[in-house]
């Protein structure tokens, strides 16, 4: 895994891509969880700075109301998502193959990360989906129950991508 990792990130392009994708993923996690507000602001032709304010405020809300552990886990999922997607891009370019269904697990981890990112409201939407009243707030760890497995899934996904790259014989090891 270490060698495959080095092969991918030896190229600075993939480091830049990872940083950009990680930042984008964090932005998307916050955006996804404040979607209703974005829709309202779009309808009012609000200035772009207000959208940025909603994102920064959303991040501050997660930190203040849900705790540093959940906030750190969301950042971890964002970074791992950036690394995983960069590795998938590398794999696609090198092998012309998506790398079987195993890589889909990575997207499962990203989905979990988005799902566990608390929004700026105490949500009842899980109640609608799973019949759980109180949303993430009823979980003792306030959403870490979802984000921690997401981190595990993303790490596993990176392992399988690395293994696939090594097996494809394209890695210089």
């Amino acid at each position, binding site marked *: 895994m270490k060698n495959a990792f080095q092969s991918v990130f030896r190229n600075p392009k993939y480091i830049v891509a990872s940083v950009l994708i990680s930042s984008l993923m964090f932005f998307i996690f916050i955006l996804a969880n404040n979607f*209703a507000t974005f829709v309202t602001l779009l309808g009012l032709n609000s200035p772009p700075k207000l959208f940025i304010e909603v994102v920064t405020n959303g991040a501050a809300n997660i930190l203040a109301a849900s705790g540093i552990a959940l906030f750190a886990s969301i950042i971890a999922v964002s970074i791992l998502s950036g690394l995983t997607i960069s590795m998938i891009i590398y794999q696609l370019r090198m092998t012309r193959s998506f790398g079987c269904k195993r890589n889909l697990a990575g997207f499962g981890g990203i989905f979990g990360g988005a799902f566990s990112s608390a929004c700026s409201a105490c949500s009842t939407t899980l109640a609608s989906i799973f019949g759980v009243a109180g949303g993430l707030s009823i979980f003792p760890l306030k959403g870490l129950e979802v984000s921690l497995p997401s981190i595990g899934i993303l790490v596993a996904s990176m392992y399988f991508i690395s293994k696939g790259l090594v097996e494809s014989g394209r890695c210089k090891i």
Partner: protein
Amino acid sequence: MFLVIGYFIGGTFPVSNFTGAVKESNIVIQPQQPQQMQQTVKLQIPSFAPSRGSDSAQLNIVEFGDYQCPFCGRFFQQSEPQIKQDYVDTGKAKFYFLDFQFLGPDSQTLGQGAWCANDQGKYYDYHDYSYSHQGQENSGWATPDKLKALAVNISGFDTAKFDSCLDSKKYEARVQQLTQIGQGLGVSGTPTIFIGNDQKEYISVVGAQPYDVFKQVIDKQLG
């Protein structure tokens, strides 16, 4: 994919089991088919609901909240004071807090306590005090006994009257009714703030958003 996630988590996807107009005593709610990007709803505020601000104010700001919700606490601390200062105290808008108590039994108790406080004309004193001294949700900070002990600190409060009202569960049905009304309006998280009036209908803002977001919506509705 993320738009789909956003629809679910952001609460704009029509996942509630709302199917049409809801009639609850003197309350009529009629959701509008979305003809523009922001969904508007018709809302008749219950006549028993106390408000802050001038009766002649042209706009209503109606918050559906849970006294245990930390994001409602954030809204109370961050945006509500500025909204009060710029729009409520200047006579432009009236502020209402209505129950959407869903986070647990203590939320129900807190909601009932508010209406018991209202019997003494202290609805918003209680509201302010509860949010100023909010504990972690479902940690036991708002059991009936703890709430009675907290209420002692609200100035001018008749605690014996409050205790007796709380024990009687006199307002249990009202809290549940208001929560159901919120569900009927499509409230999927707290705080959800509806801004508008009977003529312009109401635009909702979900979450403890920055003051500028509320300002944008309020100014649009005032204009």
